[in-house]
């Protein structure tokens, strides 16, 4: 089973590298938001510092959403998906692997470049660790929730509108707790309550989403 998961992960990353430009989209999104928004709202440090967490988070959300349409569809269309149910690997483990690679491709680049983005937006240094922590806990939730929505809309032709409608309400709490925590840290308050709730959401998503996603995929190949 580990060998199947390993093979799938390696192939997903190889395909991401081969697609090149598409895989850079999360970063392009992040920096498009960070460069363009100050042009619109004005470059005042105080204003930017107060909206910085929200901007980084919205960029992370859009970057994650962008790749969701293609999360399972190519595999459904070329017959790879049905192979998940044959052979030694458990489908749920392969679903987890696929979501993990989605996170590596869309979440990790945003996390890695978040300090630079925070610096560009005058986020107080005291809030940076909380921003990083919130991204570390929160971006996997985006991948998990998005994966479930992606599996549910697989049967609909061009389901991206439906996909967004499904994802947005489910990620609202993530956005609220993450940005609330960073704002609290910027004011010198403790963010542990926010991060605790975020972690609870992550645990909930990690336990429920793989099973639900596997069931949704199964319906689509039948």
């Amino acid at each position: 089973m580990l060998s199947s998961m390993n093979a799938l992960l390696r192939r997903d990353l190889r395909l991401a590298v081969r697609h090149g430009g598409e895989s850079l989209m999360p970063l392009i999104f992040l920096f498009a938001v960070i460069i363009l928004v100050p042009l619109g709202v004005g470059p005042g440090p105080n204003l930017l510092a107060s909206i910085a967490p929200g901007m980084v988070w919205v960029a992370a959300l859009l970057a994650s959403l962008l790749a969701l349409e293609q999360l399972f569809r190519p595999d459904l269309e070329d017959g790879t998906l049905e192979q998940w149910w044959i052979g030694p690997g458990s489908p749920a483990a392969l679903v987890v692997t696929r979501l993990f690679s989605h996170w590596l491709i869309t979440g990790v680049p945003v996390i890695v470049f978040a300090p630079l983005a925070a610096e560009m937006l005058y986020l107080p240094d005291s809030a940076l660790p909380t921003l990083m922590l919130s991204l570390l806990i929160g971006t996997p939730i985006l991948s998990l929730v998005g994966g479930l929505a992606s599996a549910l809309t697989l049967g609909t032709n061009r389901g991206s509108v439906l996909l967004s409608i499904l994802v947005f309400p489910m990620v609202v709490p993530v956005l609220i707790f993450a940005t609330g925590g960073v704002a609290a840290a910027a004011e010198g308050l403790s963010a542990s309550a926010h991060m605790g709730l975020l972690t609870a959401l992550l645990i909930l998503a990690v336990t429920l989403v793989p099973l639900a996603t596997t069931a949704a995929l199964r319906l689509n190949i039948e």
Partner: protein
Amino acid sequence: MGWTLQLMRILIETSQATFSRAGEAVFEPIDLSVAGGRALVVRGANGAGKTTLLRLLAGILRPSAGQVKRHAPVAFLGHLAAFKGELSCRENLDFRRRFSGTGSGMSNSRALARVGLAGLGLRPARTLSAGQKRRLGLAGLLVAPAAVWLLDEPYASLDDDGCTLVDTLLADQIGRDGSVILSTHQRQPELEASPEVLVVQRHAQGG
């Protein structure tokens, strides 16, 4: 006695298995059992449920009634060969080998040569013709060996030479005491011992 037991080892069997789509059974319940070293040809009209039966046997679908028992690893080759067009033939085969977790298959170059794709290992799979893609699918069976082959229309889009190749591969698989279940409506496999035939009957629709 050892060889008798070996010969009679059932690799895959069903009892009264059927599959329902939207509450309607697709085909009449099926009983079958295929032992190592045997082949079974699935026949039936268009829409009778040949593909559904093979997917049921592979484990992609769950029977809505009855049972399907797999006693050995299976490989399923359908209309979609499950290859990524962006990756080269070799990378696709590497993936197939690792994904199935069987370590004892043929090397890529041997498998490609066997199916008549020698020298095309570095070509992206999307540049292959329909027939070449089918051949790559067959190579996939060679690099990741499974005791039971489930082949859905293996002769489709292959030339005469390719059809002969399928027959040879089938004979090899049977010679290794593996089993083959294939659906076909064009050509009958030419094998030493003529395979059993199962006719899938579409379920009688009420109204």
